[in-house]
């Protein structure tokens, strides 16, 4: 086993073993606290350009299988684990994790004191990181390279992850609605959750125009999750404003939520180290019920969490708040069919507590038929 080094922007260095692919990689260091779901995490486009640290020590135990993929690719730019499994044990497994990482040329490091690393990121905030193995570089050179790698703040990444061409995920059973889903890094579980509710989902490239959306005559528009800094998404923000003006029901998740927030006039900001895990308590301010939710976001929206706010599209309110740190987790307009959540009701990985939000989208579309509004 050859040595590998994990080098942080601030100069702290962790030693480990080279795992999967040997080489050099950079990204934003983020930690994920889920104890299950490494496959979903790896294939989630939102992790594009991030080096993901798993806090759960044993990773790879259940291998990889096709049905649980959130996209057809591993997106992380590097993978940091404590104890990778050398065998796979699960009746659904098709391949081993390490084989998939090697096949997709993803550089990994194992044997790292991931808890110490996580504590460091928690206290100092998410930062740039590099993994180095099989290299002759000096420590100073490594730190210099890490510092000069690309930052997440200000990164526009939607074009990297979005589909090139539109495609359709058919409704399961009777088709009740058509939804235009803007793919900014969409996860497979999202169209799956909508299809299960009788929605025909048209997944569209990030650069789709409003006219192209209108041409589909959708009952609703969905804005997906995805990587990057929401402050770079001006074009999409404008597109969403057009959708809002047309009073087509809108549902946004994660990045989509941040874009809706910006379209309503709120600012986005970068969190210290973000929320990445599947145990985050979010309270629905209307029902006062707590849901345990899956999160993966480094940015958030600044909005008043009490009372209502006014926007050019009418009044609205913050619907959901994270109980751990009071971060805004959901927005809705009161007189317009638009809402969004910062977290992941489609789960995958994570609890299904927030599945009801897809039902809410269905209800919203049923209550606000587009044709009548347009007419």
């Amino acid at each position, binding site marked *: 086993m050859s040595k590998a080094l994990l080098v942080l922007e601030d100069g702290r260095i962790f030693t480990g073993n080279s795992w999967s692919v040997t080489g050099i990689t950079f990204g934003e260091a983020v930690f994920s606290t889920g104890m*299950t779901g490494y496959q979903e995490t790896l294939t989630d486009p939102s992790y594009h350009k991030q080096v993901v640290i798993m806090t759960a020590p044993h990773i790879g135990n259940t291998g990889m299988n096709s049905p*649980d993929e959130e996209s057809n690719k591993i997106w992380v730019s590097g993978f940091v684990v404590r104890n990778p499994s050398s065998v796979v044990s*699960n*009746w659904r497994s098709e391949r081993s994790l390490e084989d998939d990482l090697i096949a997709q040329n993803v550089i990994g490091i194992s044997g790292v004191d991931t*808890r110490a690393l996580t504590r460091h990121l*928690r206290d100092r905030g998410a930062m740039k990181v590099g993994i180095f193995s099989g290299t002759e570089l000096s420590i100073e050179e490594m730190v210099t390279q890490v510092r000069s790698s690309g930052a997440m703040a200000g990164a526009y990444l939607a074009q990297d992850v979005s589909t090139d061409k539109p495609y359709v995920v058919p409704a399961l059973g009777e088709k009740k609605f058509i939804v235009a889903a803007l793919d900014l890094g969409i996860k497979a579980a999202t169209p799956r959750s909508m299809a299960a509710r009788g929605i025909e989902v048209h997944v569209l490239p990030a650069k789709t125009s409003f006219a192209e959306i209108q041409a589909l005559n959708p009952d609703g528009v969905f804005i997906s999750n995805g990587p990057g800094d929401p402050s770079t998404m001006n074009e999409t923000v404008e597109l969403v404003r057009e959708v809002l003006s047309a009073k087509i029901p809108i549902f946004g998740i994660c990045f989509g939520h941040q874009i809706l927030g910006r379209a309503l006039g709120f600012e986005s900001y970068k969190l210290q180290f973000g929320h990445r895990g599947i145990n985050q308590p979010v309270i629905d301010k209307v029902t006062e019920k707590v849901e*345990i939710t899956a999160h993966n976001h480094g940015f958030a929206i600044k909005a008043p969490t009490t009372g209502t706010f006014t926007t050019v599209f009418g009044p609205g309110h913050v619907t959901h708040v994270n*109980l*751990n740190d009071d971060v805004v987790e959901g927005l809705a307009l009161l007189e317009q069919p638009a809402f969004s959540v910062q977290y992941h009701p489609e789960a995958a990985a994570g609890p299904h507590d927030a599945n009801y939000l897809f039902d809410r989208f269905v209800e919203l579309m049923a209550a606000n038929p587009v044709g009548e509004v347009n007419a």
Partner: protein
Amino acid sequence: MPRDNSIKSVLVIGSGPIVIGQACEFDYSGTQACRVLRAEGIRVILVNSNPATIMTDPEFADATYIEPITAEYIEKIIEIERPDAILATLGGQTALNAAIALNERGTLAKFNVRLIGADIPAINRGENRELFRAIVEKVGGESSKSIICHTIDEVLAAAVVLNYPVVVRPSFTMGGLGSGIAFDEPSLRQIAGAGLTHSPTTEVLIEESIIGWKEYELEVMRDHKDNVVIVCTIENVDPMGVHTGDSITVAPAMTLTDVEYQRLRNLSIDIIREVGVATGGCNIQFAVNPVDGRIIVIEMNPRVSRSSALASKATGFPIAKIATKLAIGYSLDEIQNDITKVTPASFEPTLDYVVVKAPRFAFEKFADADPRLTTTMKSVGEAMAIGRSFAEALQKALRSLERKEAPFSWPAPASSGEIAALLKSIEIPTEYRLQQVQRALWWGVSIAEVFDACKIDPWFLNQIVELNEAAKIIALPGELTDEILHNAKQLGFSDKQIGELRGISESDVRAARANLDVHAVYKTVDTCAAEFEAFTPYHYSSYEQETEVKSRTKPAVIILGSGPNRIGQGIEFDYSCVHASFTLRDSDFETVMINCNPETVSTDYDTSDRLYFEPLTLEDVLEVVRAEELAGPVLGVITQLGGQTPLGLAAGLKAAGVNILGTSPEAINLAEDRGEFGEVLAQQELVAPKFGMAASQMEALKIAHEIGYPVLVRPSFVLGGRGMEIVYDDESLSGFIARATDITPDRPVLVDRFLDSAIEIDVDALFDGSELFLGGVMEHIEEAGIHSGDSACVLPAMTLTPEMADEIAVATEKIARGVGVLGLINIQFAIAEKQLYVLEANPRASRTVPFVSKATGVPLAKAAARISVGATIAQLRSEGMLPAGNGKAKGISVKEAVLPWNRFRRVDGRGVDSVLGPEMRSTGEVMGIAATFGESYAKSQISSFGPLPKAGKVFVSLADKDKSHGIAPAKSLIELGFSILATTGTAAYLREAGISVTEVRKYSEGQGAMGQRTIVDLLHAGEIDLVINTPVGRGTRADGWMIRTAAIQRSIPCITTTAGFAAAVSGIAALQQGEMSVKSIQKWLA
């Protein structure tokens, strides 16, 4: 919504004595409940018959009733205290059953008191198998195919439908009592027959077998707003077929994808909602088919359980505490997470470490018992370990068990025949199956073959293969490098194991580590995988890059706990450790607890200032001491409170330069070494029973003749499962030596004079180097020869003359001074023909410390801890911790032992013999307190599951040596209106003494020509109300054994000593005199 202000007083029901399946985890949960309620200003009324609990300390409730946990007694308490509500979900199955009985009795309605947590319909939906199956079906889950039966005929018919093997599960029992797997009709008849008896509703479930499936358990919590969270997921390493309490388990689950895990999570949430557990915790068990993932819901407990305690310790999420808050009206989001201080309890803990729990068994105490593990729980305790990998946690857990067979070892290759035999034995789960698995893999058997034999998931098997691979590298010749040591340590290898692999000593490995600076660092259990800062120093060791131990300025006192519960060392010792921690914290020390028992109060993260969840081995303790010395001043280590485990470490710690607080290791040795202790006694002119050491059978006989029969004989090296025995003649002495010892000059046999019919006295005292405080002088009810832990005893002593009491006090002081005790000492004396004999002295806290403390109101363990750090008895008296003079009992208190006979069967399916002897076999104890001995004794019998009858038929069978002592109590029985039955010998003897007796046939005589039934038939027919059967000499003479096992099976009280017979008669007299009263400890002590 904040809490429900209509609740101003709550009755908390405890779980009673420690029994298999229900141990000190319920003291942990009940103590948390009491603390929470009191902190809320709610008046707390507590009932628990177990004096060895922290929860029954007077300061944990406003009114503490150490009374039987039966509807009858609880009703009396309710009548006095008039609580607004009852909390019955934190006291195990005992409390839940009591709640059901109170409801049926009409008590709840009569006094308008409501159940909080789970109500009666919810309890029924969770516990009644038919209702529960319907619920599982309703939420879209699947139960295993099964049939409910109420008779043996129904059972046999069910097996035809389901095909063998089938699982038998009686309804409403705890710890899987009475359940088992039947492979054929005879075994089904036997298991289901017992199961029908054990079930209070005479109901068993016959179920399709899912043996070998993966087994999971989810801990679920719900609040009144219907918020639900999963606290922990536990995966059993041992697949279905072994009771989860007997399985090695791991948290979090290791072999599920998120999709599969979420399916279990969703089912759990749907089930808790549908069952309608309004608030609080429950656990739900699942089986998953490893071939296709089919999920079967096995069962749920609508209450806090043993697994909840484990889950709490494994995650840092205090389930019982939160459940209590939820019960009084809070919701999860209104409760703060103690550990992070900033986040709420409405979340799901995430772990960045691995937790392994391993069970501790006591088969060696029950030599006849069937060693196979089944769905009836048999383990008596458990150890938990935390590591940064499964391998590390597993190896730590195995060494935490304190069994030399438990840690993995790597012996030389075996023959193919041995390997084949090993592979065969792996098919049957037994205590050391995992060690067999490891050995088979070490000897080259493939993972696939081992999996076929045991169905342990290949992922776990591969982890063991990796350990074996690492062992190979460690064993390679060459220097012990930093890399080898680090890798070994990260996989949990102990210094001892590394030494064994390399043929060097443990201390050499330790020295090599010290040279290379390879030391443990300590991580924190924080509920959140480091996402938020943790404020509770709850640590575990690992060999990583960064430690989280914070520096401190206050001097630290390190307290060593007692490790996994076992027979002879259980909750009583945890009680003393917890007391030490409380009092030293109050005295401004920083208290540091080391223990590995997840069931205990000592391993609650807020009991001590710092908690290290670590094995109690010299290596692991030294590492903690080192870490704490780096953090700040360390005053020393307390080893005298946790029982034999820490006491055994004292010498090694001292040799390593660690300061031992209290009694020194030299003094400990003085008391423990027979020769040296003999000298102490001789110097003080005290007498011990004569004894000798025999190196051959001839010599043993010679010694026996010199000192006179009966003698107590035991091997100086105890062989597996064979202890000591009392023999009355040459024949039985020779027999014992041949059967149970391996006598050689190197392995001598100890032969002690046995004092027949002597009174045994137990003393607990404090000594500060100059002054003695006599805590309590207890008189055993059973005569000397019955292990003190199995004997009932009474405080104050009932038959001591003032002169003898004085002599005991003087002798106690002489011994304490002679040995050099600083703290607690326990001495056992015997009195025979007015002569006082010293049997043994233990310079440490004893099992009886909590009992004495409850009976006298004197906190002996706290005082001992203070003396250990320099306080004097005079000082403690002036502070008010100790009273003037000696400890004085308030009222008359009886302690009775609780024995686990009903848990064990022989391989042939019949019960194990229930005779008491010099080897301790009880798992727990109860206390009865009253104004008279009879009443107190009667209460103790009710609490220990052998309630005395008020009327009816008594079967009396006395051994020849006991016959004369049996006359007086037999006469009294007739006077009390009982009729007596006896077989020929005893009947003739009693008749001669003028006692009217009905003669019945012995079992060995068989039924009479006219179909006259034998005593065993009568027992099975339920026609006998009490059995007095004193054994004849050794062992299981067929008649006596059949009688005793039949009585156990039918739950008929069975007394095996004449002294017990006499005590029972006093108890019966008290019962007949009418209303038994209840009185809180606070009132007794006032």
